[in-house]
């Protein structure tokens, strides 16, 4: 049984402010990079897909599935969820405006099919997009998508350094 890519807290952004669709996709790109799935150039490629092919990535009312082909800027399979404080038009004739942007990165096409198939299960309920748009925690988003914060497996030591997370209580 395949599973969705992990959705760590760093890959979830709730209530983001985006002036336009590019900013919204870029937010999803930053989340993928923060979680370690992609390099920052992947965001440019997700934007390029929409510039080339149009807003077809808005695959359901209010939901954009931002993605690009596998490439050297994908470090590992990854998923990101961005909810927008104010809905943003992507230029889709029926499904605008977008309230939820899902960022997806995969390293090969077969993986892609399996991952996205799992996403389909989460969204076949027509209320799912609205529930994710209104979610107030990463845990709630994970529950709605059926995603895990990390892949099951042996725990790995957390890297520490000057640029890691702020001390507890900061930004609360």
């Amino acid at each position: 049984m395949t599973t969705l890519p992990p959705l760590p807290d760093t890959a979830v952004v709730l209530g983001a402010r985006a002036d336009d669709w590019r900013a919204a996709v870029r937010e999803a790109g930053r989340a993928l990079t923060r979680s370690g799935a992609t390099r920052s150039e992947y965001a440019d490629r997700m934007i390029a897909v929409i510039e080339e092919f149009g807003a077809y990535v808005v695959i359901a009312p209010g939901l954009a599935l931002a993605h690009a082909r596998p490439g050297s800027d994908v470090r590992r399979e990854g998923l990101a969820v961005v909810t927008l404080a104010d809905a943003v038009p992507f230029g889709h004739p029926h499904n605008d405006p977008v309230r939820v942007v899902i960022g997806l990165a995969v390293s090969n096409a077969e993986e892609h099919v399996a991952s996205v198939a799992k996403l389909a299960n989460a969204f076949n309920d027509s209320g799912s997009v609205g529930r994710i748009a209104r979610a107030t925690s990463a845990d709630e988003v994970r529950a709605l998508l059926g995603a895990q914060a990390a892949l099951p497996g042996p725990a790995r030591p957390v890297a520490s350094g000057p640029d890691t997370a702020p001390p507890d209580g900061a930004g609360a």
Partner: protein
Amino acid sequence: MRIVAVCGAGIGTSAILKVNAERALDRLGLTADVSASDLSSIADAAADAQVILTSTELAAAVRQAIGRSFAEIIEVVNYFDVEEIGEKLEASLG
């Protein structure tokens, strides 16, 4: 019968369309071989397909890419709406 679901790049959205087309066919009691493709490989993928599923946004590009294929292009609005996909497949296949 062969059905191809098409997206712009990298088999992203077409995978969702494939899964939900299979669900819709199942509900209709029909069987078909449904595959996912992107625009760059649609000409080959569509050669022996009866139906191509894609979004309205990509329909023109798909039509151009498949050239002389006899496949019918069905435009899907909501990729998660199994009912919509089913109605459109039924109208096309029935």
